């Protein structure tokens, strides 16, 4: 069983995240880059299966050179190998291009199962896993709160706005997992040492047999504006009548 886990590097949500208002692109220098928390959970789902079964787990990421850190962490957690798609031509890629490139890398590597996070904390698109599945021509099951890999197939419970749906699909398939899935493990010292010897391959677009043309017409950012920062208003310390003062504030603002 060959499992590919998609890990994305994102700006740390604990810091300020900044867009370049001229290009609409992420200002990578302005914040710390970390492995997206949700992708650590995706990796955990793969590693738990590997703990009890014969499986090969590969972490795949597309992004600039700093992505190496994210892949090293994945290897330290227990992934067997890592793949990094890096190419200057990929800077500023939109959803269509990201999905096409990741799908090409997955095809080149070969796979039985792809596990992704349900949505990245930066873009919050939540569409890349489904797009990849369509490129690969395999079933997708996104937003799984729980999942179980059984011989030849995968089943899981998908939480949606209305309740839950129990689903299954034959392998090969693509799934994405939510925050409700496995709590990720911490890399231990042994894992960190071992990670140094594990393979980390870097592929360019040429290695994937792709060039800059041949993508679906993508999207174009036409304008980016920053919302003025919010400022604090009135702040009172309760001395026994704060509830009454708040009712007055709400009434004055026609909020009740």
């Amino acid at each position, binding site marked *: 069983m060959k499992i590919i886990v998609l890990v994305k590097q994102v700006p740390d*949500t*604990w*810091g300020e*995240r900044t*867009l370049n*208002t001229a290009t609409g692109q992420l200002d990578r220098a302005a914040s710390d880059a970390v492995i997206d928390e949700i992708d650590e959970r995706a990796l955990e789902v793969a590693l738990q299966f590997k703990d009890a079964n014969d499986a090969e787990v590969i972490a795949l990421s597309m992004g600039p050179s700093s992505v190496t850190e994210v892949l090293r962490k994945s290897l330290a957690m227990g992934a067997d190998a890592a793949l990094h798609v890096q190419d200057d031509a990929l800077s500023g890629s939109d*959803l*269509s291009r990201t999905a*096409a490139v990741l799908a090409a890398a997955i095809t080149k590597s070969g796979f039985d199962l792809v596990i992704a996070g349900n949505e990245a*904390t*930066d873009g*919050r*698109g*939540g*569409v890349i896993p*489904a*797009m990849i*599945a*369509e490129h690969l021509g395999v079933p*997708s*099951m*996104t937003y799984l709160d729980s999942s179980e890999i059984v011989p030849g197939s995968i089943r899981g419970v998908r*939480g949606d*706005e*209305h*309740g*839950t*749906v*129990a*689903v*299954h*699909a034959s392998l090969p398939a693509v799934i994405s997992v939510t*925050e409700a899935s496995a709590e990720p493990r911490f890399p231990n010292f042994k894992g960190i040492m071992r990670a140094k010897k594990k393979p980390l391959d870097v592929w360019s677009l040429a290695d994937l047999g792709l060039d800059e043309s041949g993508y*679906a*017409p*993508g*999207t*174009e*950012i*036409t*304008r*980016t*504006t920053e*919302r003025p920062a*919010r*400022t*604090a*208003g009135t*702040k*009172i*310390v*309760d001395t026994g*009548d*704060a*509830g009454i003062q*708040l*009712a007055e*504030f*709400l009434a004055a603002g026609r*909020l009740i």
Partner: protein
Amino acid sequence: MTHALAFIEISASGEIRNTAAMLIAAAAQLGTPVAVVVAAPGTGDAVTAQLGALGAAQVYLAETDTAGSLLVAPQLAALEAASAALQPSAIVLAHSIDGREIAGRLAVRLRTGLLVDVVDVRSEAGNVIATHSVFGGGYTVEATVPGGGPAIVTVRQGAIEARADATTATLTTEAVIVDAASAAVIDAVHDAVVATDRPELRGAARVVSGGRGLGSQANFALVEQLADALGAAVGASRAAVDAGYVPQTSQVGQTGITVSPQLYIALGISGAIQHRAGMQTAKTIVAINKDADAPIFDIADFGIVGDVFTVVPQLIEALGTRAE
């Protein structure tokens, strides 16, 4: 005028999901709105009048036996067929769990551009322009799909308040063929029974949220009491969700729901950056917290340093007195 498709989600029992009105309105901003619905043969006609009342000029009813048994594949086949038949300038879906999966696969299948989680759409010189609110509302980004092909757009639930004028929809019924080989199978559907007449969190005009400061599931009732006194929806921080006070569907923030109400009241919530990302575009923010240094106060229009268990009951009483 070209067509714009609005994909309408329906429940297992055939009811239109509440995103329909918003989606038809969004489609109407881009072209002649056509509602696309998937149903088992002979079961879908009933929604035609309802969708017309919401502004759909036409209902494209795709019939397949696989509706309800295959995950997203019937919906994909329906939109692919409707798109081929009507050559729309845009296909609009909800940015829901299903909507995202359908939209993502459709964009690849039709080889066209995808604009996700948009809060507004308009048409300019024949181009679809979408407005996104990113990084918790810190930035507004406009984007478009250059070149041909329908723009595929997912709209944030509750984001568009406009409504299209009611009309009488024409009905087109087509049988669609679904590729089952690359589809996941639905084994069981459990729609949670919502036994509440509180407004839904998404799109609510008023939201009262509780955090870890409430201390227990039993105490969380205080949040619900204030919400009911204000006719507000109930939200929560992730810490309150993780502690089991409320279901995950109430989570506001980075990895929860994004709300943009007229009034947001945060009770016993510290205001971590990930929570603020989901509520800081609210018109008016009120916070009650014991800790004078809680970061929520940095963005509150009215902050009270105090105990929720004394301030909130007094507020509820004051609201009651005013209502009389």
